[in-house]
């Protein structure tokens, strides 16, 4: 009977599926930060092409936090080998990892990313400071020394030098690693300048002038297209790819460029990392080669492939130190 053979086939399929997880994996599996994803994907693709002996690594997203969660699930072929991150791993995450048997967490810092404020090209020029941004989005701001509910509706009320435009800020939601950098480098900086307390620094206005985006930067861009007066927060590499529609704001007088972020004069930048599971080196083929290739001059070096894609490269000696740390299998210390 036709049906009988189909049934047998289905049963066979179900059996193989339950058996197969025992088999070893021969493809490196990476997941994590969506900021690092484009860079990791490019390296993965070039790695697969340059090393015929290894498969092309698979790069998933899921955000920095999601990547660490998968990374710390344990050791074995059905857990990922490398977690991409746009912030350092936290002590709590290291503790989770250790509980689940992941003890060799190797940290590799491979470059920098700038965070920029950008508007639609049709809008006025913004020269922002952390204090401007804080005053634009905090729930409470000091006016004449007294903390009151945020009265500002237009940028030029905060500072007459800013354009006469209604305040709308499109910022990344807290699932993004970008948000943490935005909070510490911009909001906290502005908040501490006027002596704000912890709660005053982290409570944002809720009258619809601050929009949190949990998706990627294309969603932020779409917001700016539908509400042209809005100011959006983007990664420098995203801005670089869309310079025809976006105009960038200076922060504290510094215009973000590859140079100003690389030399540290632009204040809102952060290092990018990936974390390697030491237990998997030698078990999943190609991990050590992949890391070495990632840090090579051709990829993460100045003038390399990743710089063309928007990464701000580290100086040669810093990359050499990162590689040496990896090769010595230096386990990351909680901080």
């Amino acid at each position, binding site marked *: *009977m036709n*049906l009988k053979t*189909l*049934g047998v*086939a*289905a049963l066979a*399929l*179900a059996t193989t*599926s*339950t058996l*197969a*997880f025992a*088999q070893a*994996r021969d*493809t490196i*599996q990476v*997941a994590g930060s969506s900021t690092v*994803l*484009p860079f990791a*994907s*490019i390296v*993965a*693709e*070039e790695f*697969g*092409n*340059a*090393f*015929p*002996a290894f*498969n*092309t690594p*698979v*790069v*998933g*997203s899921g955000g920095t936090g999601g990547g660490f969660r998968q990374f710390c699930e344990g050791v*074995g*072929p*059905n857990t*990922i080998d490398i977690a991409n991150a746009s912030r350092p791993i936290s002590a709590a995450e290291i503790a989770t990892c250790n509980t689940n048997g992941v003890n060799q967490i190797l940290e590799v810092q491979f470059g920098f990313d700038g965070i920029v404020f950008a508007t639609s*090209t049709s809008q006025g020029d913004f020269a922002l400071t952390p204090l401007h941004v804080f005053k634009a989005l905090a729930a409470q701001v000091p006016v004449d020394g007294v903390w009151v509910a945020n009265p500002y509706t237009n940028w030029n009320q905060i500072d007459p030098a800013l354009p006469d435009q209604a305040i709308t800020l499109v910022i990344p939601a807290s699932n993004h690693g970008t948000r943490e950098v935005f909070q510490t480098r911009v909001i906290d900086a502005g908040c501490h300048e006027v002596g704000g307390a912890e709660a005053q620094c982290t409570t944002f206005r809720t009258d619809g002038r601050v929009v949190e985006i949990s*998706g*990627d*930067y*294309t969603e932020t*861009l779409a917001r700016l297209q539908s509400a042209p007066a809005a100011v959006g927060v983007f990664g420098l*590499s*995203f801005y670089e*790819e*869309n*310079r*025809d*529609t976006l105009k960038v704001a200076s922060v504290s007088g510094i215009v973000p460029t590859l140079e100003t972020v690389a030399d540290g004069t632009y204040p809102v930048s952060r290092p990018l990392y990936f974390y390697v599971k030491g237990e998997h080196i030698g078990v999943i083929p190609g991990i050590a080669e992949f890391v070495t290739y990632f840090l090579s001059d051709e990829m993460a070096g100045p*003038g390399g*492939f990743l710089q*063309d*894609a*928007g990464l701000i490269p580290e100086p040669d000696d810093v990359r050499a130190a990162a590689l040496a740390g990896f090769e010595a299998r230096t386990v990351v210390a909680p901080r």
Partner: protein
Amino acid sequence: MADVALAPSPAPDAPRTRSADLIARSLSRRRRAEVRFRAYGLAAVIAAIAFVVFLFWTILQSGLPAFFQAAMTVEVTLDPAVIDVGPRPVRADFPNEAAFAAADLAWQTALAGKNFGSLIERAVNAVLATPASSRDIRAIYASNERFRLRDMVAADPGLIGRTIPFTLVASADVDVWFKGNIDRSLPENQQQLTLAQQQITDAMIADGTMKSVFASWIFTNVDSRSSPATAGLAGAFMGSLFMMLVVIALSVPIGVAGAIYLEEFAPKNRITDLIEVNINNLAAVPSIVFGLLGAAVFINAMHLPLSAPIVGGLVLSLMTLPTIIIATRGVLRAVPPSIREAATGLGASRVQVVFHHVLPLVIPGILTATIIGVAQALGETAPLLLVGMSAFVANIPTGLFDQSTALPVQLFLWQGNENRNFFEPRTSAAIIVLLGLMILLNALAIFLRQRFQTRW
């Protein structure tokens, strides 16, 4: 009408005229109501068609140009001084398969280390009036083209030393400039191409080196991040195909068997009623819920690999099962009792009645239900994101356990790519491919129904 009957008695001298009047008036009111209703219906249909036409028009308008891309034909000299790594090992020279495989891999690795980019650079410089910098030339062509050149040499080492015409796919930024998808009047600091690169491109367009060619690689290449201009749908297509195989292999036999049991054999009692209600409810469960379930059961509990078509297929099977059960029960119910009675009267057992007489009659119906269920599963995205199928995969999957992505997920990934000017049309092109597949599947379902349907 009740109002008329209950109305207070009219003046005694004019009862007939009055009711005739009422009827005449209500008649014209009823006619008007009918005309209005028809107009509403027609307007609704026209509005629906207008939306569909608008949707297709926008997608086709933005997506069709993406099937043609800028490419330049240059003469590449495969200089042995740059790329020769000796003859490729042959099996006969080695005692066993393993030794041969190792030698062949070493040969491939040696070839991979050669600088094919410099050959392309020379070839491009040959067609330019003034030589350009390496950086500018690298910005002009899609970087994966150097691997395509290498693969050509690996497949036919006899090419080494010869000069061959090679059609280089232009980079994404050049393609955007070529098609005018970026405002050419913008100043250099708002452009993706530098002034020098713009001049090189324009010169190549002017002398006919750079032309628009059909982008067949959309169908034959896998996704690419380092060389977006050559990104294609082949990997996603194979991933979707493997998932659909799993869906068909699992949900058709289980679904049909379940439907036959429930419809033909199960006693009609509270338990079967409960099962029926549950199946109907399952069909209405949002697909993301199946994704969450799949992630918890197949990945966390059963430890199946992430991003594998087997997991995606299992999740989609769960989703397709109720659709197939409901549709199959429908067609079974439509078989007239006379067929069953006649077979029973001739001495057939219940199993024989079902499998010899009823089932053959409903196979076209089951086929249609399957195709529609599969078409639905093919377009499903949300549950796949939860089982890790949104990863960047640059290999064509060769089995159920290989990492892969799926067509609708590929769409989602391209939609989120940061190079908006290039990927917006590219996403529409992928939509066209996906819609084309859907229309094909649905047309097949209609054809089979028309061709094989039995009417009673």
